[in-house]
């Protein structure tokens, strides 16, 4: 990858579902570039294509036409297992519903991506502890999700996302289930990770005040990028 080249590039990306008359275009020729270390909020009404774009960015999905390149790799043409490998090595996911494994301790949840990486038991534990410390959850390692509050569960999910030291964090409405106070805590945590670790963050949200934490906001509408603007410094 050439120096200064974007981390993520969409070139005329289409994503279509269905056949013939019923064919629907979730993305209709999107061009987009996101650089390393950016914090991007992606907004738009439901059906605008923002979730589809996020799935492609996170290498969960592939475009129907056009090119999606991630770290200079044509990720849109990779098979399932290679994309799984990319996700495991470079992408961390945070979801609205936390998506932690129930009846599994915080530490074990955080260790999960490392298992698929084949990291040894002890090292896994150490890395999980570090990640939990980074999200401010020391002392809660052995709690199961049911024993943690929503904000704490989302912190565990973030720890799980960053335990592999990813390049990109994909957050899908990370504060959608949280109250205002918790929302700000989580957003400050994401901002800190973006600043301190240089982690690239792409975040889907439909709350304007949440989007303000990002440096840049991309709005989707009907499968197109409707606007793409740098946010004013909110200091």
């Amino acid at each position, binding site marked *: 990858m050439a120096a200064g080249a974007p981390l993520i590039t969409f070139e005329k990306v289409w994503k279509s579902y269905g056949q013939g008359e019923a064919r629907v275009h979730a993305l209709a020729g999107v061009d987009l570039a996101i650089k390393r270390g950016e914090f991007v909020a992606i907004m738009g009404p439901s059906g605008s294509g923002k979730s589809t774009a996020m799935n492609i960015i996170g290498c969960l999905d592939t475009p129907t036409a056009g090119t999606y390149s991630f770290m200079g790799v044509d990720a849109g043409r990779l098979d399932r297992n290679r994309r799984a490998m990319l996700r495991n090595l470079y992408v961390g996911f945070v979801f609205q519903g936390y998506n932690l*494994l129930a009846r599994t301790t915080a530490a074990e949840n955080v260790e999960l*991506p490392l298992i698929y990486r084949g990291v040894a038991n002890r090292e896994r534990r150490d890395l999980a502890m570090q990640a939990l410390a980074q999200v401010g959850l020391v002392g809660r390692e052995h709690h199961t999700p049911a024993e943690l509050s929503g904000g704490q569960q989302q912190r565990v999910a973030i720890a799980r996302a960053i335990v592999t030291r990813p390049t990109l964090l994909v957050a899908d409405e990370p504060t959608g289930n949280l109250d205002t106070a918790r929302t700000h805590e989580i957003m400050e945590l994401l901002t800190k990770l973006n600043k301190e670790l240089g982690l690239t963050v792409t975040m889907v949200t439909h709350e304007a005040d949440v989007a303000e934490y990002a440096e840049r906001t991309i709005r989707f509408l009907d499968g197109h990028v409707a606007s793409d603007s740098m946010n004013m410094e909110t200091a």
Partner: protein
Amino acid sequence: MIWETVRLSLRSIRRNVLRSFLTLLGIVIGVAAVIAMLTIGSGTTQKVKADISKLGSNLLVVRSGRPASPGGPGGLDQVVRPLAEKDLAALVAHLTGARAISPASQKQVRVIFGTESLTSGVTGTDSAYLDARDWKLVSGRPFSDSETRSGTGVCLIGETVHQQFFGAGDPEGEIIRVNRTSCKIIGLLEPKGYTGFGQDQDNVVLMPLHAYQRRIAGNRDIDNIYIAADDSTPTSELQPRVEDILRDARRMTPDRESDFAIRDMTQIADAMASATTTMTGMLGAVAGVSLLVGGIGIMNIMLVSVTERTREIGIRLAIGAHEKHILIQFLVEATVLSLLGGIIGILIGLGLAGLAAATLTIPFAPSPAVILLAVGFSALIGMVFGFFPALRGARLDPIDALRHE
């Protein structure tokens, strides 16, 4: 990684204890049935073989009447001419290759001592009988030739009779009543236990043939003649000789069918053992069907498990699990489940077989090969029936799986 997966599957099995147990039940019952059947079966085969060799593995038994034909027992038209002493005498005089030749007539008769009584198998015979049957005395002595000839009221008793009348005491010299006659006990037979058919071989009284004929049977007939071949003569060689001598003694013209039958105990032993083996195999196969049913149970529950955990699969796929990781996870879970069932089944099956062995007094003969096979087979069932559900889980689309409620 594999250890991790095994631990994971154990946890998921423990999470649904009741459901896992019910799923296991099919495999448990199947394996227990197969193990119990095969273990009891091989014990029975051993027992039958041992019993028959106790009868004397190189033994011919002659009795009157036509040999049993495929049409059933001897026809009505035929008047059975019993064996007589002259037949025995002819064999003793002319048969070569025999170690012992002995007559035996038998009847179930009430035996009384003091106030105790017992229905016992009373046999009238001579001093060669112990040799022919390969029976031994624990104490006392066999009949003397003169006692045999004159039909003196003396007898040898088996262990069951001994226990019933004397407990642990010494029976020698005591007088017991057999039917309406009395006889003096002169020896105690070595215990032989039960036959494979549940017959007590120690509930016996032996007395001289003449005493038996005169005082119990009331005739001069001989029911059976036992002929033990010597070590260098196979029974198959001895049999035609016996037939020739007897036909001659009984003055039978060549156009007539023999009116006596010669049974070769070796053949019977083989037939018996193979019958038992066939029976065991068939029962084992029936039990095997329940294993198949158990396997379908596992498949069913694994499909439920995959559906229930669709979201979990989505998470795992999203954070970088490959298809094969998910496949292995569920395969291992199914295998651990059915292996667990197999092991429990083996323990229960062996327990049942042990119980049966104790009750039926057959040897407890667990076969390591059968146990190993059962372990392997139950693991295989888990893999085979777990494969389809596991594949279904592994093929899930991570986006759909994450959206699953």
